[in-house]
């Protein structure tokens, strides 16, 4: 085991890199110094993930690569700078670091004004997002969680589309709205437990009434972030207005924080309330899957369509978690594990797919400056390579076997079957609706006659764009063909979570 503080490095390298980009490179050489510095920083961050992956112990559900030093004391409680990862957070840190490289490349030629600030904002965000996943102290988690909003607020607001101000303020306030309740819940529990450590909060016994309140507070915070029906309305706005890189980060990573919050806080901290809420949560998830799927079908704006499809896909994640609870109650432990694992696979897979979809739309937008499906048609004639790659991602989005999109959904549907036949039927409609909206959009944009002069003048993707899309395509296929590389990372942690969740935390139980 290395003695390097690997997680700290993963958090602070991008942030320090961002400072260098901002103050060291600035707008020199038309911003190309800033770009290269940002790329190098993101690559170093990605390289730091290698020892994290190889050094990760697959046999234990305990926190690994732990770091602990007291930060300061407030009202008699110590807030620690405590970091650590388990099977849930480690893959997400890998995902974050990976997506950052893609995002830096994606902004390479596209961003023309204030390049250094754009790159710096993304790097800062990467560090903060890694911090969210690695934090083991509730207050540290909260700090990272909130701080992350600031760079995203600026990214959407400065480099976004015409309606960006509305979208970004909505994004900020929605998320902030959720987290104030979380803050009070954290304070309440920390005072009860005498510690801000998340692991201590896991052990805190609470009555069912209190658990209900705590669960509700966390639910508001995380449901907004996921986003779950009915608090999802910020997402289409934010996605549509954000620059491509912003959409990618938003879809690929930020949404995962909501579901990560569920496994890190809701389920282990309030297991009894989670069980009691399981039906409601399943219902909301199914509404997201089915209803939002239909909403996606009628979108005329490509980004909006993918945004709604993200909500539907994230519905699978929450479905997986809470189906597991319903299953635990009826002693279907195996299937419960399947549900949770499927949900986690879906998180990572959706990170790749949605990121890739937004990049594809970005590629088209950079050329035509329109996101309307109606402005396209016959793109395959002028951009064959692009059409092929986008085909793969569209299929993955629809859940085609062999791609990563299939694995998670299939596992969750299987688990849902054991819980309730109708859950599974409703969840499975996504395979039809998902195929419908994805493929229909693809057909209208890519196939057919060349629709107009803009499309006729399109140039196929250059090397830079090829590179980022091909890398993502490989990731989608790899995860689709060999999901074990992800599931084996999570296996002990999933088992541990289910064990913890089985134990009632009611006092005296």
């Amino acid at each position: 085991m290395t003695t390097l503080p690997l997680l700290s490095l993963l958090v602070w390298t991008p942030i320090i890199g961002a400072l260098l980009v901002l103050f060291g490179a600035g707008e020199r050489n038309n911003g190309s110094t800033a770009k290269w510095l940002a790329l190098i920083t993101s690559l170093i961050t990605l390289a730091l993930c290698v020892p994290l992956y190889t050094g990760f112990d697959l046999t234990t559900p305990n926190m690994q690569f732990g770091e602990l030093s007291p930060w300061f004391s407030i009202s008699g409680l110590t807030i620690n700078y405590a970091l650590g990862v388990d099977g849930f957070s480690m893959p997400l840190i890998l995902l974050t670091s990976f997506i950052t490289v893609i995002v830096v490349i994606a902004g390479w030629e596209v961003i023309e004004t204030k390049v250094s600030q754009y790159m710096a904002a993304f790097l800062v965000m990467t560090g903060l997002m890694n911090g969210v996943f690695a934090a083991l102290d509730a207050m540290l988690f909260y700090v990272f969680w909130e701080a992350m909003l600031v760079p995203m607020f600026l990214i959407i607001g400065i480099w976004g589309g015409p309606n960006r101000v509305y979208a970004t303020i909505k994004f900020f306030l929605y998320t902030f709205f959720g987290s104030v309740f979380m803050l009070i819940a954290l304070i309440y529990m920390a005072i009860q437990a005498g510690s801000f450590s998340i692991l201590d909060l896991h052990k805190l016994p609470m009555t069912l009434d209190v658990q209900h309140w705590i669960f509700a507070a966390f639910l508001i915070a995380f449901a907004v972030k996921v986003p779950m029906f009915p608090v999802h309305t910020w997402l289409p706005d934010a996605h549509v207005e954000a620059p491509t890189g912003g959409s990618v980060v938003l879809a690929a990573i930020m949404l995962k924080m909501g579901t990560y919050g569920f496994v890190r806080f809701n389920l282990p901290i309030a297991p009894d309330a989670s069980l009691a809420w399981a039906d409601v949560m399943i219902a909301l998830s199914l509404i997201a899957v089915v209803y939002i799927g239909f909403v996606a079908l009628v979108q005329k704006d490509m980004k909006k369509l993918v945004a709604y499809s993200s909500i539907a896909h994230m519905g699978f994640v929450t479905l997986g978690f809470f189906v597991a609870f319903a299953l635990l109650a009826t002693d279907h432990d195996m299937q419960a594990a399947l549900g949770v694992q499927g949900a986690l696979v879906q998180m990572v897979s959706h990170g790749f797919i949605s990121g890739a979809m937004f990049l594809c739309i970005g590629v088209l937008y950079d050329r035509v400056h329109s996101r309307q499906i109606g402005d396209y048609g016959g793109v395959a004639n002028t951009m064959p390579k692009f059409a092929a790659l986008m085909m793969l991602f569209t299929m993955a989005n629809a859940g085609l076997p062999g791609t990563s999109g299939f694995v998670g959904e299939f596992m969750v549907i299987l688990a849902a079957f054991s819980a309730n036949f109708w859950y599974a039927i409703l969840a499975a409609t996504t395979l039809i609706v998902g195929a419908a909206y994805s493929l229909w959009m693809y057909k209208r944009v890519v196939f057919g006659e060349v629709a107009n002069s803009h499309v006729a003048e399109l140039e196929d993707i250059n090397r830079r764009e090829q590179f980022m899309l091909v890398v993502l395509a490989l990731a989608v296929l790899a995860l689709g063909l060999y999901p074990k590389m992800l599931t084996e990372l999570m296996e002990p942690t999933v088992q541990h979570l289910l064990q913890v969740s089985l134990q009632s935390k009611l006092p005296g139980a």
Partner: protein
Amino acid sequence: MLENGMQTFSFAPMAAELFVLVMSCVVMLVDLFVPGPNRRNSFWMAQATLLGALLITINLSSLPNALVYGAHFMHDGLGTVLKVGLYIVTAIALLYARAYIAERQFMRGEYYLLSLLAMLGAMVLITAYSLLTIYLGLELMSLSLYAMVAMQRDSKQAPEAAMKYFVMGALASGFLLFGMSLLYGVTGHITIPHLSMLPSDEGALMLYRFALVFIIAGIAFKLGAVPFHMWIPDIYHGAPTSVTAFLGSAPKIAAFAMIMRLLTEAMPEVKADWTVMLAALAVASLVIGNIGAIAQSNLKRLLAYSAIAHMGYFLIGIASGTSEGYAASMFYILVYALMTLGGFGMILFLARAGFESDNLSDLKGLWQRSPWYALLMMLIMMSMAGIPPFIGFWPKLQVFMAAVNAGQVWLALTGAVFSLIGCYYYLKVVKVMFFDQAEDKSPITASTAMRVAISANGLAMLVLGLFPSTILAYCLKAFGG
């Protein structure tokens, strides 16, 4: 204890106050005879006074807590920390004011003299331990501030604001004085330790509570807590910005000391009464302050309403009635003073001769004009909104923790929900700076000292936020935590 004080009489505990008093006279004389170009000498003398007072206070901090001078004067850790905060705030406010008052033709020696006297009043208020000295300090501070508001004679708004401030302030003092006289009538004492004994008979107890109500009304007036907040937006707006920066920060620190002395130390027996009253004031301030700020298009008014809202959070801590809560409120008020100085400091920084830069629209496109200062202003706004990791978050957290610990989860929840509404108008400021197109493309003219000061002030939001114990530890120590 009193007798001991008489036997070994020493000026030491009030050396800082005496020093400031003497030096303010010296500043007046220096300004009369050798002001130097642009009153440079007066300025530096004032700053030297603050530095000297700082050194004296730090030196004296090792003395044990003592009640001296006939029990009118308290030397304790609380006073030391607050006074140090006061010096820093005053020094920054004077620095920010320099160019502003010169450009507006009211760079006179009196500005420095009055600032020092107002600060002296605040110092007396902080250490005062009897009703008399409290009132003395309060009036010295208030009268100096009235004059400062009125100093810009050729402005239309300033004299009007001064008039309002004076009338309102006099009314508040009247309330306070009436409460104090009732208290004296009931207990027969004016020193704080003697006031805490509840009178035994029903009628006197009634009067004691009556006194409490008037004292709280007086305090709430001075703090600008709803429903005694009406003067705040007008005065903040009408006063010259440099005075507003001072007015919005230093007196709040002193007011905290006044609350500590008058409520927690003088009337602990009726704690159940005043915690409820303060909680009600807190909620009302949160509501009116945060909602009122949304509609403002003038930055000074916006910050005025935000000040009202901040007093709401500040009062939550005291309303918990625990020493943990007091420490939280103390932390809050010190951090707030720093943030509000930053906010008004930025307005001063962007202002130039003939241009106040106090409308929200004046900040349009600041990011394009100067990314660095836009970033600093964003740090200040985010800090005020209570977004971690900026410093403004930690006192909010501590205040909420104190409330939850005292069983007032609802109060913490109310505060948290209203911080969401507050967030909106701070975001609006950020939005104007970053997302709107600049109309005014003129370069920023400011002295190097000003640039350094505002940069330090803005960066402090982040740096102190990462290392909050630099302030927090002293607050906890002041309350023996």
